[in-house]
């Protein structure tokens, strides 16, 4: 196993990751994060030293058993409460920029 994966991080990968999570970065941020991510991932690479042969990955199990509530009808949040935090709204709906195609916001 390579112990130098941290060095596989470069500015192109930083920009790619940032776009995947829809994060606009300045060029200065790209340069800083590139260096910091290399150093942090280089530290994480020590995990490669651990023998995990035959060890299953941990899976979250709620203690006892996951308990589901009864599927009963109950009031949900009132529309005006939900909309009270929406940055843009129109006619009782959340307003969203165009998703497909370009053009005017609608």
């Amino acid at each position, binding site marked *: 196993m390579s112990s130098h994966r941290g060095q596989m991080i470069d500015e192109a990968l930083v920009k790619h990751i940032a776009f995947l*999570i829809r994060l606009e970065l300045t060029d200065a*941020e790209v340069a800083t994060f590139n260096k910091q991510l290399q150093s942090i991932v280089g530290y994480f690479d020590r995990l*490669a030293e651990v023998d*995990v042969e035959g060890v299953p990955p941990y899976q979250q199990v709620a*203690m006892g058993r996951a308990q589901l509530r009864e599927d009963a009808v109950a009031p949900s949040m009132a529309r005006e409460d939900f909309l009270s935090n929406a940055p843009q709204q129109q006619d009782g709906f959340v307003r969203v920029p165009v998703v497909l195609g*370009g053009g005017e916001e609608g």
Partner: protein
Amino acid sequence: MDLHALTIRKASALLRSGEITSVALTQAVLDRIAAVDPAIKAYVTVCEDAALQEATAADARLQRGGPLTPLTGIPYGVKDCLSTTGVRTTCSSRILENYVPRYDATVISRLREAGAVLVGKQNMDEFGMGSSCENSAFFATRNPWAFDRVPGGSSGGSAAAVASGMGLFALGEDTGGSIRMPASFCGVTGLKPTYGRVPRYGLLALVSSFDSIGPLTHDAWDAALVLGAIAGRDPRDSTSVGVPVPGYTSTMTGERLDGVRLGVPIEYFAKGIDPAVECAVRTAITHLEALGAEVREVSLPHTEHAISIYYLILTAEASSNLARFDGVRFGLSEPPEGVDIVERYLKTRGKGFGPEVKRRIMLGTFALSAGYYDAYYLRAQRVRTLLRQDFAHAFEVVDALIAPVSPTCAFKIGEKVDDPLQMYLSDIHVVAANPGGVCSLAVPCGFAEGLPVGMQIIGPPMGEAGVLSVGAAYQATTDWHTRRPMAE
């Protein structure tokens, strides 16, 4: 008598006997905030009018004699990641600067029902990402013992507030030390309950498989009172546990620890620990032994990998959890007009998140991405299994583990901000409890150069009653927890 400096236990007795009113107590806390918070900066929002209304209601309840709880009339503050109806809840982030929830977190509604009085919302590292409270988008909180030092993080505002009398207790949230570390740095008591013991409904999620809500108080007794009020199954959180909530204070009366088996994990006293911190914790262990506890060394061999396990899983889950901040349904939206949706996402998130949040969600996306998933995220989950086995083996032979909270006392503001890896490494003694699935109580156990030192009492899953009893016996026979900074 300084009302703001009282414990819950003492204040509750005075309220019930009619010697003080909740309005007077709440006003004393509000006055204390006005006097010292300009220097400490623990609060993001103070709700003075609402607090005095709640105090008036609590006084009415006290006068008619019920229903009363140990928290009726007690003023408290809460970390700004817990939803409060009608009160801004920011996570100390620009992206939520103007977000006003329309519902209460379950823990907040339980405290309301108990009659506690909410005085305000406390500063934190943005979305809980930090160990010093310097990552707040608004301002850094200062340590009440030394204003040029950090209060610890991420619940730094909560710990600083309790230490300096700006609330008789606080609710914090611990994802990887975020209650225990600031408790230690500020000289207060902090409990990270077992995951699932306290419901998370209404908590703005950082890491859904680690996050634990818990109290910051002056002593273990008060922590037990608060835990008793907030713990227990909630139908709105399927991970909350149905195990009955015991009367935590009923087992906390003793000063002796005869027959209690305590383990000292050798890896927690390894390289890098400040000699003064080690000395204080070892002195405390000798003290516990003198109270009758059996002490032995144990080994948690995967401790050295706890930081990697913790940060890989944290960043992966956080990158998913923070995807909800899209500038559409709530929160910041940039620019307001005339862009397509991808542009809206890019600008909203680029402008709304601070540097540590950006760093971590990029790390998490990297750890989850094709080509790296097996080597990072999946491997971290495998080593997490080993880490949990370490704790399980230790708890076959001991009832609790004693360890330092942090390898150092509170560090200087600015000392680690430019080196995120060094900041992460300061969490070495606290992070394992969260992926490890255990509970842990931090209590003050000494001072080094005028700064508080903290000790962890780590217990098995659902072992809160046990660690609180050990903490109570220690505090019944020591006075570190009674020291207060900025006292007149």
